[in-house]
């Protein structure tokens, strides 16, 4: 077994400030990636002046990544929004909260009267706190009764949730970050952890470059810093994850590298999986994936003789063709090998954004709160009793409306009010020309809650200035279920308010009441919301019932489930290999992985897994838009280390901005030579939808693949007409049929010198 990861406390303070000048250190965690590193916020003269990692925190042992170290400066930016804005005569003008919120409530009431609450949609973020999400979920589901609630988390984390539901019956990350210390084999599938979660990567690097090195298998079409450390790097064609994974499963089964007793006792579906992967020899997969059969065999050998396997999955799977199907196959590797629920045997179906986990738990992403099943009348009744409303109010007649469908309804005019909180779809969604045209529709009333006048806020009818992290109190949960309390360190600027205050104000103005006429929302602050959530989560897999603000103030960073039986939290799920797959317990009855067809209750009951995990098989299919004569390159968009989301914060941290001031397109040396372009040359990258103009970086992607970072929009650049540069001008409107996650690592482009 591995050793403890030693602490190293990272500190960053404003120029000229030393630790002695700091008046208060306020407990929090980093909100700039899904790792959720524990830190303290330094305060002096009523301002945030720095951060310091917390050495005792289980997630980071004191370390902070570049975004954590420098991103806090954004709070102090001069261009924060400090007053509500209302569009009058085509221009956004300053207004009072009374005027702005009055307009939002008035438009909401009118739409409900004319067309029901189905005319109202909420599009949130991976940046709000649990208390804000849960309050919004209750407003939307038990108050208004709209099925249209989702957010930017659909773009980053939907497949993680869905794959966990399909395999284990419920969402919930099984592993612990401490599995990094205990594993003997690492399998990173479409997860460039060196760019996305730097502190987790440093934890892995300390193993990879230390004694008793684990073996590393990496699946990525680019030779990333992670791939450079690998024993086997499988640089497959984008869109072929399922073919590769089926071949790996084929090898595990063919060589008998499986835990037969575990498979027989604790899983269902082996025969179908075995039959599905049977034709997927390494030779066949090699042809499809564009790598050698020897590489596939080598990777399978490493997975096959691992004693403690840790696998991680992120956007290379989630934002690619057959997302859920592929993510489930990684779960299958662990089930076949019986490697789950003990130290070193983890699966991280990673999250993209810092608080994405909480949207899934609370139902702000459309799911029912507490990982409840919308097809289970008993679960709906539990919520109705908790909220004291008629079960008929709660939308549960169909799957919740996913993000892309919400935008489609707005495009068709049936959604007349779209409230966007803490995210920037005018840069982050696919096919931006279409997104802009929707935001600009005369019949769509757009409300934007944000701290800055983003590309999206500029197009809004009402802009509500919000408090940021550090200016409000609340909790959030990372990708290994660790809950942190983030305290208010300073006041928000001007008249800015927290999203929680804004939602509570909206609930009062809409006069939302329960079936006895009492106010539906029974809390007035973050701690009250947290208590409400605890009651909602009780008895469910994400049980917070023994957590409290007091408990988190004693010890920040506790993993759910946290109950009277496990007051210190739970490091790993499924240690007893009992999974929440009974029809009564499960969060979903699942889907057909090819089409997304819902498996109905009766059918699920007929094959009741009874607490065993489900081996979900999927046949490989070819992606729809693949490179060809006209558009010869495969496009992948993704992150770069210094930036987060659409740079609203990281653009305002000088060190981060300096590290990556402008976008680029990364192409291989061979492709650059063939195009007669060199490093720094401006090129046009064009898809069937649009073109952008960006400089070339010669990198090491698989030949025929190009990479463009998605962070860059227009707020600090010339307008799109003069110099189009956002990666999402190019991307296609298509999503995984099961998780509904849009495909950003798909589609074809051509590249030409300008």
């Amino acid at each position, binding site marked *: 077994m591995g050793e403890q990861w030693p602490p190293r406390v990272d500190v960053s303070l404003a120029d000229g400030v030393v630790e002695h000048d700091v008046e208060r250190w306020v407990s929090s965690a980093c909100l700039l990636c899904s790792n959720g590193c524990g830190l303290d916020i330094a305060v002096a003269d009523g301002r945030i002046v720095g951060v310091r990692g917390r050495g005792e925190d289980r997630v980071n042992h004191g370390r902070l990544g570049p975004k954590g170290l420098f991103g806090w400066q954004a709070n102090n930016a001069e261009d924060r929004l400090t007053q509500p804005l209302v569009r009058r005569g085509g221009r956004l003008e300053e207004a009072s909260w009374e005027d702005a919120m009055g307009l939002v409530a008035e438009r909401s009431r009118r739409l409900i009267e004319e067309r029901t609450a*189905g005319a109202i949609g909420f599009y949130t973020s991976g940046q709000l706190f649990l208390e804000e999400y849960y309050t919004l979920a209750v407003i939307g589901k038990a108050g208004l009764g709209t099925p249209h609630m989702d957010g930017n988390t659909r773009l980053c984390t939907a497949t993680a949730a869905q794959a966990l539901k399909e395999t284990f019956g419920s969402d919930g990350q099984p592993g612990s970050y401490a599995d990094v210390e205990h594993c003997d084999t690492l399998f990173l599938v479409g997860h460039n952890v060196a760019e996305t979660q730097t502190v987790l990567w440093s934890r892995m690097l300390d193993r990879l470059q230390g004694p008793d090195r684990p073996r590393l298998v990496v699946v990525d079409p680019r030779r990333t810093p992670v791939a450079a450390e690998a024993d086997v790097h499988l640089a497959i064609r984008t869109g072929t994850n399922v073919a590769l994974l089926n071949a790996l499963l084929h090898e595990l089964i063919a060589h008998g590298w499986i835990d037969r007793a575990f498979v027989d006792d604790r899983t269902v579906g082996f025969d179908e999986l075995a039959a599905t992967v049977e034709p997927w020899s390494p030779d066949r997969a090699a042809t499809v994936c564009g790598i050698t059969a020897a590489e596939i065999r080598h990777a399978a050998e490493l997975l096959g003789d691992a004693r403690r396997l840790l696998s991680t999955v992120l956007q290379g799977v989630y934002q690619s063709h057959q997302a859920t199907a592929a993510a489930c196959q990684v779960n299958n590797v662990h089930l076949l090998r019986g490697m789950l629920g003990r130290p070193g045997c983890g699966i991280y179906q990673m999250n993209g954004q810092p608080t994405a986990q909480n949207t899934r738990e609370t139902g702000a992403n459309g799911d029912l709160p507490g990982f409840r099943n919308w097809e289970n009348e008993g679960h709906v009744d539990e919520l109705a009793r908790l909220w004291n409303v008629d079960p008929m109010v709660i939308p549960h007649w*169909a799957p919740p409306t996913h993000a892309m469908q919400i935008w489609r309804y707005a495009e068709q005019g*049936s*959604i007349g009010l779209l409230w966007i909180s803490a995210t920037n779809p005018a840069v982050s969604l696919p096919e931006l020309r279409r997104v802009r045209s929707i935001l600009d529709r005369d019949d769509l009333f757009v409300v934007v809650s944000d701290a800055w006048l983003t590309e999206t806020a500029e197009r809004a009818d009402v802009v509500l200035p919000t408090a940021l992290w550090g200016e409000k109190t609340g909790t959030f949960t990372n990708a290994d279920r660790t809950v942190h309390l983030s305290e208010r360190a300073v006041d928000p600027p001007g008249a800015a308010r927290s999203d929680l205050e804004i939602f509570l104000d909206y609930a009062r103005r809409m006069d939302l009441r329960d079936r006895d006429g009492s106010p539906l929302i029974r809390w007035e602050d973050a701690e009250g919301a947290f208590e409400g959530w605890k009651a909602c989560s009780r008895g469910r897999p994400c049980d917070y019932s023994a957590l409290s603000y007091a408990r988190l103030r004693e010890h920040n960073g506790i993993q759910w489930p946290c109950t009277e039986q496990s007051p210190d939290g739970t490091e790993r799920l499924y240690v007893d290999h009992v999974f929440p797959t009974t029809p009564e317990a499960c969060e979903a009855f699942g889907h*057909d992985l090819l*089409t*997304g067809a819902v498996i109905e209750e009766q059918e699920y009951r007929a094959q009741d897994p009874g607490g065993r995990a489900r081996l979900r098989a999927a046949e490989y299919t070819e992606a729809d838009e693949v490179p060809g004569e006209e558009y010869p390159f495969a496009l992948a968009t993704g992150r770069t280390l210094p930036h987060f989301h659409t740079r609203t914060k990281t653009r305002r941290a000088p060190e981060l901005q300096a590290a990556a001031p402008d976008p680029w397109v990364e192409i291989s040396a061979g492709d650059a030579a063939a195009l007669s372009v060199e490093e720094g040359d401006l090129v046009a990258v064009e898809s069937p939808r649009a073109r952008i103009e960006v400089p070339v970086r010669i990198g090491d992607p698989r030949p025929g693949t190009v990479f463009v970072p998605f962070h860059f929009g227009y707020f600090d650049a010339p307008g799109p007409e003069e110099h189009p540069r956002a990666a999402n001008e190019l991307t296609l409107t298509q999503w995984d049929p099961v998780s509904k996650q849009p495909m950003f690592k798909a589609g074809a482009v051509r590249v030409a010198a300008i």
Partner: protein
Amino acid sequence: MQLAAYLGLIHRAEGELGQAFREIGDGHAEEPDVLHVCRTLAAQCEVHHERLSPFPARYGEGAPDEPERLHSTLFSGVRSGGLGLLRDLQDLYLMTCECDITWTVVGQAAQALRDTDLLAVVTECQAETAVQGKWLKTRMKQAAPQALVVAS
């Protein structure tokens, strides 16, 4: 033996269904999920059609002597808008029902004939037909409230 007639029916029904999936998918290209899943399912129907081709040699040509009714009655060009999408998916749903019951009938005959080749084709194709119907139902349940209650 009259199996030839039913082989003709299923052959034609799968052909018509595949064509309808393709037309409706392409006609609703602004609903990307409908476009892409319909294309996938159209390809499935084409494979079903192909897999049936050895059996007329075994059991006769079996061209149906009755006029095709369902496709021509149901399907007369792609409709538009939310309600139009719902109506088009409903037509497809009814056509999958016809395929499903026709597979059932052919499967009964295959069992009585102890024709394991035909039975394997029926079993595998009918399973896919069932999923096609479930997808249509899933998509229609999703679309119905907005199309019927909210949209004007």
